[in-house]
């Protein structure tokens, strides 16, 4: 084939040559990340679109996303009062964990649906498919920032204040949250195109996951319950942190709630997991490393499958 030979010489010279073959492309994360950054405009526009569409024709608009944590707060304050197990400064405690959970669960549910919801785009437009789940995360991030405003308001209004050395855990906890969320979202989004069961499974799974994570109740309760127990020679309490979100939420608690056992009119009762900041940081780093590995795998899977999305939809 004459043209083939002629081409070969110029391929190296021209970096803009796109070659499409039957081979599923191999993910090179660095290169791919640069590609995605070059197309960040699509991502930003999609996030803008989602936000606009989400609140289009609604009178309160973005206020709705602030209402969610406020309603949660009201409900759980009521519930914990009724069962007589109220924690001191409960709003600060609940919100600092709940916001992280919201970012995770909203990203996951909308991200898993993102490819299917944008079927028209996927079938008619050529663009980096990663942008769809990333846009879902982007939208959840905007909500997170807004809701964090509510949290800060609560912190100030209740006079609770922020705790400086503990606050330094926040960047680590937040980064871990982002990496783990991205990994799970890519994974679910990739699978959901082929198996629509995933989105239903997710709803059930997230419900269970929410309750096994110390968001509504005190982390100290878990520590008490599991203290001294072992499974195959490993402390059960350590195994508990195999749940990455338990580690992330406890990190958030320590960063934003700060005090392990705040003193309220009498003897201080422990609320947070009673471990050193160093131990929590170490757990977070371990989860971060695990999440990074998971992200590499999930992204690779998504990247490999995304070549066939237009066909599968």
């Amino acid at each position, binding site marked *: *084939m004459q*043209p*083939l030979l*002629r*081409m070969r010489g*110029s*391929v190296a010279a*021209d970096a*803009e*040559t*796109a*070659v*499409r*073959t*039957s081979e*599923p492309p191999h993910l090179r994360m660095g290169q791919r990340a640069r590609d995605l950054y070059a*197309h960040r*405009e*699509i991502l*930003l*526009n*999609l996030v*803008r*679109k989602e936000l*606009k*569409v989400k609140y*289009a*024709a609604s009178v309160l608009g973005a206020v709705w996303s602030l209402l969610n944590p406020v309603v949660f707060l009201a409900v759980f304050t009521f519930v914990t009062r009724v069962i007589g197990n109220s924690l001191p400064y409960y709003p600060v405690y609940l919100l600092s964990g709940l916001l992280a959970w919201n970012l995770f669960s909203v990203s996951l549910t909308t991200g898993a649906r993102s490819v299917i919801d944008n079927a*028209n*785009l*996927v*079938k*008619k*437009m*050529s*663009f980096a498919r990663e942008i769809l789940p990333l846009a879902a995360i982007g939208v959840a991030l905007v909500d997170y920032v807004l809701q964090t405003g509510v949290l800060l308001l609560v912190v100030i209004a209740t006079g609770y204040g922020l705790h400086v050395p503990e606050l330094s855990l926040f960047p680590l906890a937040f980064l871990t949250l982002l990496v783990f969320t991205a990994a799970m979202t890519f994974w679910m989004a990739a699978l959901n195109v*082929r*198996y*629509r*069961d995933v989105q239903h499974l997710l709803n059930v799974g997230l419900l269970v996951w929410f309750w096994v994570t110390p968001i509504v109740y005190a982390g100290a309760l878990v520590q008490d319950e599991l203290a001294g127990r072992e499974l195959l020679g490993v402390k059960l309490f350590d195994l508990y942190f195999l749940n990455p979100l338990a580690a992330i939420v406890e990190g958030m608690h320590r960063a934003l709630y700060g005090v392990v056992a705040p003193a309220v009119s009498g003897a201080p009762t422990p609320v947070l997991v009673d471990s050193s900041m160093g131990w929590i940081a170490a757990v977070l780093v371990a989860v971060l490393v695990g999440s990074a590995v998971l992200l590499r795998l999930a992204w690779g899977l998504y990247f490999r499958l995304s*070549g*066939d999305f*237009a*066909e599968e939809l």
Partner: protein
Amino acid sequence: MSVPALEIVEVSKKFRLYREKPTSLKARLLHSRMQVEDFWALRDVSFDVAEGGSLGLIGHNGSGKTTLLKIVAGILRPTSGIVRQRGRLAALLELGAGFHPELTGKENVYLNASFLGLSRKETDRAYEDVVAFAELEDFMDNQVKFYSSGMLVRLGFAVAVHVDPEVLLIDEVLAVGDEAFQAKCLDRIGTFRREGRTIVLVTHALDTVRQICDRAVMLHHGMVHATGAPDDVVREMRYVLLGVADSGFVPEEGTREAEIANVELIRASGTSDRPMLRGDPLAIQVDVRTNEPVDDLDVDFQILDGATNHPVLEAKTSAGGIVIGRFDGKKRVRFRIPAFPYTAGKYWVTIGLTSRETGHLYHVQTQRYEFEVADAPRVQDRVDVSVDIEVEDL
């Protein structure tokens, strides 16, 4: 010769057709031996498009044109084969594909432009031109869901042609919109060609291919059936199209008791190689010669649109109340159309001789004759026209 902008080397694409797509885990597990049919949408398709070339990709519905375009655009993956493509590519598979109904026209322009590879700054620069091209100055702040389909099409095309691609893929999007806008789009594509950009155009409008492409490829059942100069490929396409629509297609048939001796298409302008104008008179003159005496001759003609092969105009001597009696020898029938009403394009003419009583076919020539119509130019100059003036008492 320069390096081709687009190389398609032995590309095949297999689709799996499921009776019902198993999109749930249960379906996958239970029906692992589900009835699956393989369908080859493309088989060993190879051709190049030179840099600055414009290629028309034609073929009947389901011949694999759109699949091929999607593979070139990177939306679908080939089952085997290689596509190499150089330069910035913009694919226009559906006008306004990226539009969201809840967003305003302006927001959609920015969203769509980013999908086609434009940065925000580049879109800022092109924005005024896009709006002017689409002629939607007053509607850019309205939500797109309130747009008419014509407005959507205009906006979609306006964005696409301002993207500044080196390779432009267009799938059957010129067929929409009103005539004036279509002309504007074709004009824009002409400009693209002069600027040396590469164009691949998928269309059913065979005339458009002849107008703006320098090469054409015809796909048939997923294989390259013909490739070459647009005129040749379009002729082949027309033949195959008719063959597919009617397996009994023969260009000429009949028992020849009477036969068509000569046909003239007489236009006002006289010469037959230049297109006539829309609204011009046209006469179809059919000379008939008999080989044995014929009692009940009926002469008919049919004019078909060259782009779509749809009949647009037909007439019959008997339907006009004319009875041609028994005769042996020659007769001349003239059908006069005072003003040909259809738009610019190619038209084919079929002539038939039949029996009035039985419908028996003496002789038919299917789409043997052709003529071309150009749009009447608008009169812009002052012309001396005498004006009658009357004044009446009331």
